[in-house]
Structures are given as structure tokens and as C-alpha cells.
């Protein structure tokens, strides 16, 4: 536990190093960041009017659907705000950028993940949290200390599942060795499907969302919170699924590092 805290503290310092670099020495980049955040926030205003139109889907009420949507958006926001470097992994591998990271006493995966920060993540995280806040007052849940705690745990688990999927899909770069065509992008696009109750899809699509476990980012945890039958029962295992996903992605990454060949000059 103390070890985890130490790792987290160092991680934060690395992220802040990047923030400092952008804030103090890269004013050009800063302006772009601010512009993109502003456009995204403007989008939120537009979205609220859209959400007023969201219908009930099957036995999912409108605000329950929005809850799923919000969890996925939040997970994506946190992912890009704090772990954006994951998406640069292929670049690191193909340019030999892991060399120095490999000789430091800190996990290589975390050094890559914390190497940069995705500014769009900020607006997504804010949007996700805002929607969750509003939805919390509209859904049919008896909020008490236990349900709030459970909801938070489910949310964190969803974030971890998303993170593990990103890490694992980007880790394939160790095997593919090409900077451009990455299955990570495809998986990320599939993630958009996970913003809605998977019951609206055909069996095939559902199976994909369960196997890749994107459905555990929003759908299943929400089902657990709202007590939706079998899906809800499965959803209660979200924290375990998250732990397994992280462990799996971590092991996969370690296996990948054995294949790392650096580059010749």
C-alpha cells in the first residue's frame, strides 16, 4: 500500500512536469489547449439540450441511460487526462524511446502512461461528472452512505477497466512493430458503442462488448447500481473484473517488454 502511494506520488510528479512544460515553456501549445477545452465546454451546453430528448430504452429509464453514457465519458476523460501517454506507446516502441525508461527503477508502463496529458480529457471529465451529478437526482436510487460508496467503487472500477483495455490494445504494438495501423484505435472507437445499454445491440455486438469488456465500463456497473436483473448481478462483479483486467494488461505489457528490441542507429 505504501509502495502504491509512492508510485502514485511519483506518477503525479511526472504528469505535473508535463503540465509545467506546457504552461511555462510552450505557450504555443497552451493556446491550442485552451481553445480545445473551450470548444468542448461549449459542446456541453449543446449536449444538455440533446439529452432532454434521450428516450427510455427497453427497461432502462432516460436518466439511467444517461448515467451509462456519463460513466463512459468520465472514464474516457480521466483516461485521457491522466493516462494519455498510453496512446504514445507504439511511437515509443518504434523509435526506441523505451531505452532510458527501462533502466529506471519505476514501472515502464507507468512512465509511458504519465509522459503526457490529453487536454480534451478535462472537458470530458467535467461533462461526465456534471451529467452524473444531475442524473443522480433523477434516477430511482435510495442514496445513502452505502449506495454512494458502491456507486463510487463501480465508477472507479469502470475507469480501471477502460484503462486496462487501452493499455492492452496499445501493448499489441510490441508485436506489430508498425507505428501507424494499431488495433488500439479500433478498440477505442468500439468504446463509443459502450455508451448505451448493450441490450439495444444484436447478439454479436453484445458479445464483442462483453469479451473486450467495454460493457464493464458503464453498462454492467450501472445495471448493478439500478438492480437490473442478471445484468445487475454480473455488474456486482465489476470491481473483480477491473482487478483482473489490470492484472492481465500488466502481464501482457511485461511479456511485450521481452520483445522490445530498441532500434539500431
Amino acid at each position, binding site marked *: 500500500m505504501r509502495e502504491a502511494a509512492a508510485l502514485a506520488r511519483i506518477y503525479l510528479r511526472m504528469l505535473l512536469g508535463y503540465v509545467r*512544460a*506546457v504552461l511555462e*515553456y510552450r505557450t504555443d501549445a497552451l493556446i491550442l489547449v485552451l481553445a480545445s477545452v473551450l470548444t468542448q465546454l461549449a459542446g456541453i451546453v449543446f449536449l444538455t439540450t440533446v439529452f432532454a430528448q434521450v428516450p427510455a430504452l427497453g427497461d432502462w429509464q432516460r436518466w439511467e441511460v444517461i448515467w451509462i453514457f456519463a460513466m463512459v465519458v468520465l472514464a474516457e476523460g480521466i483516461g485521457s487526462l491522466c493516462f494519455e501517454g498510453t496512446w504514445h506507446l507504439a511511437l515509443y516502441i518504434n523509435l526506441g524511446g523505451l531505452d532510458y525508461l527501462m533502466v529506471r527503477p519505476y514501472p515502464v508502463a507507468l512512465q509511458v502512461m504519465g509522459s503526457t496529458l490529453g487536454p480534451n480529457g478535462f472537458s470530458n471529465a467535467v461533462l461526465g461528472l456534471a451529467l452524473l451529478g444531475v442524473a443522480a437526482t433523477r434516477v430511482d436510487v435510495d442514496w445513502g452512505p452505502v449506495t454512494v460508496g458502491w456507486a463510487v467503487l463501480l465508477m472507479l472500477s469502470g475507469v480501471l477497466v477502460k484503462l486496462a483495455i487501452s493499455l492492452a490494445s496499445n501493448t499489441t504494438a510490441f508485436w506489430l512493430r508498425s507505428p501507424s495501423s494499431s488495433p488500439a484505435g479500433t478498440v477505442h472507437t468500439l468504446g463509443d458503442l459502450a455508451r448505451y445499454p448493450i441490450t439495444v445491440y444484436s447478439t454479436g455486438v453484445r458479445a464483442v462488448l462483453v469479451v473486450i469488456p467495454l460493457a464493464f465500463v458503464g453498462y454492467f456497473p450501472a445495471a448493478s447500481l439500478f438492480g437490473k436483473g442478471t445484468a445487475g448481478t454480473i455488474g456486482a462483479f465489476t470491481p473483480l473484473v477491473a482487478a483482473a483486467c489490470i492484472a492481465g494488461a500488466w502481464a501482457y505489457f511485461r511479456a511485450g517488454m521481452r520483445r*522490445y528490441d530498441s532500434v539500431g542507429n
Partner: protein
Amino acid sequence: MIEARGLTKVFRRADKPPGLAASVRHLVRPRYAEHTAVAGIDLSIGAGEAVAYVGPNGAGKSTTVKMLTGIVHPTAGEIRVCGLDPHRNRHANARNIGVLFGQRTQLWWDLPVRDSLALLRDIYRIPERRYRARLDELEPVLGLAGLLPVLARKLSLGQRMRADLAAALLHDPRVVYLDEPTIGLDVTARDAMRGFLRDLRRTGTTLMITTHDLGDIEEVCDRIVILDAGRIIYDGPVTAIKDRLARDRAVHFTLADACPGVDLSTDLPGSRTVAGEDERRVSVVFDRFVHGAGDVLAAMARHARVVDLSIDEPSIDDVVRRVYAGAIGDALPDRVR
């Protein structure tokens, strides 16, 4: 300190011919071209040794260093560094070793050097007091103070190398690997770097230096390992190489007037005068332990008006050629593999 046995690295490059049909075929049945960069080397380096690891381009020097440091997983063979397997015990190993690749920096590009070093302090979990003491130690030799507030991307090559060296040595490693630490440095910066490396040796640090520069080897190392095509062809004291194989130096002159038949062999016994591309160019090859470049210039000036000159130091490639030619084989048969 460093023990390697049967160390081998085979790189597999996808042998992907151009064209769509070929790409599809590659997907179905991938074909690879194999390239053995390091072919079963044995190496044993004791504590406090300073070893020069040399060889022509593509010999496998950097690949060896990457395996010894745990960056690249060997295809075959065993490595122990301070008793640890560097790839398996990555984190424990990282605390024992310092690494510098002269060709690339480990500094955070958009941050001042000070911030990069502070991040490394956090990563290595160096207590603040030790960190300050270490910076004070490195300050006089590396001249860090002037570099600390500068952005890494604004450093000159020489400055960057010093800052990178500070980064590699921050945690006071017992074993230090330097892959071309003087590459691209001007004469002054190179001398400063060599001076620093000599000091580092004196502190008992084990050094392994990859270089193409004989000067680095002579001034810093006592042992030289020569690699060619992935195999060690010589492993022995630097003095033997220096005295036997790296004696010849050449001065190339451009003269004001054509001067056919000029010959300095009477002025400088043992030297050879070689005609150049045209009649105004001439080269003098001499033993650098017998004559100085100044003597050669003075001698030439007695015969002709010198317009320009350049000096060729003996190169590693010459040394490798002469090892093959057997120049050292009879002298030290047990050392040559």
C-alpha cells in the same frame, strides 16, 4: 561485477516485400530475415575496471550494452550484473547502474535541466539531502550550475552531454555504461569529458565505454575489448594495443607549389612520405611515439611552403584490421580469440 556468458542477440526483421499481394502473403505466412548482432560473447568485468568496448560500425557494441543494461532481452546467454539478472530484476538492477547513450538524451525535452534531475530524484527516491550533496559533488566537474535553468532542448551538444551524465550518475551507481559519450563533442568538451571519466574511475566506479575514439580509450581505460561482427576478437590491456597497433599517425599537407620528390625520411627517421592526389599534396606517416606533429611540420617547412594541413589519428578500424592481420596474434596468443 559484470558477467556474461554466451551472450547472443538475433534480430528478426520482417522481410516484407512491397505490394499488396505480398503484404497479404506476409500476413498469412510471415517471413523474417535474421541478423545476428551479437554472437555468443563471454565477458567478465571486475569491480573498478574501466573497459573500452570498441569495434567498427554495426559490430554489436550498442546491442551488447542494451543487453547488459536489461533494455533488450538476449536471444541466448546468461547475464549477471552485481549478481542480478538485469532484465528480470529490472528495478533492483536500475539502482546499481548508470547509463548514457551519447546519441540520445534522457532529459525531459521541454523542461529545464533542474526539473529533469528533480524528476529523476523522485524516480530513484533519493533523499533530498543526498540529492543536494550529489549535485554539489557533480557541480565542479560537470559545471552544472550554468546548465540547471536551461531547457534541455536549448542545450548545446556538449552541455547536453554533461547534463545527461549528471542524470546518469545522480543515484551514484556502481556500474556505469557509456555508449559513445564523446560523440560529436569539440576538442575542449571532449577533454573535459575524459577528465571527468578519469575522476569517475578513481572513485572505484566500474566503467564500460563504447567509443570510436582511440583518445578516449588511452586516456580513460586500462582494458580494451574489440568486437567485430558480433564476436570478441581481442580482450586485453590497452597498452598492448596502443604500443603495437595504434602507432601510426599521418599528416596531410597542401603545399604552395608543386614539390615532386619531397621526402622527409632523413629528417624524421622511420617516417614515410607518400605522394597525394596531385603534386601539391603530400602525406607523411610517422610513429607518434617517436615524432610529434610539430616536428613533422617543422621538417616540411624546411622543404616547402605549407598552405594547409590535417592530421589523421590512428583509428579503431586500423586497429581492427591489424588485429586480423595478425599484428598482435603472436605477441599475445592467449588473448586473441
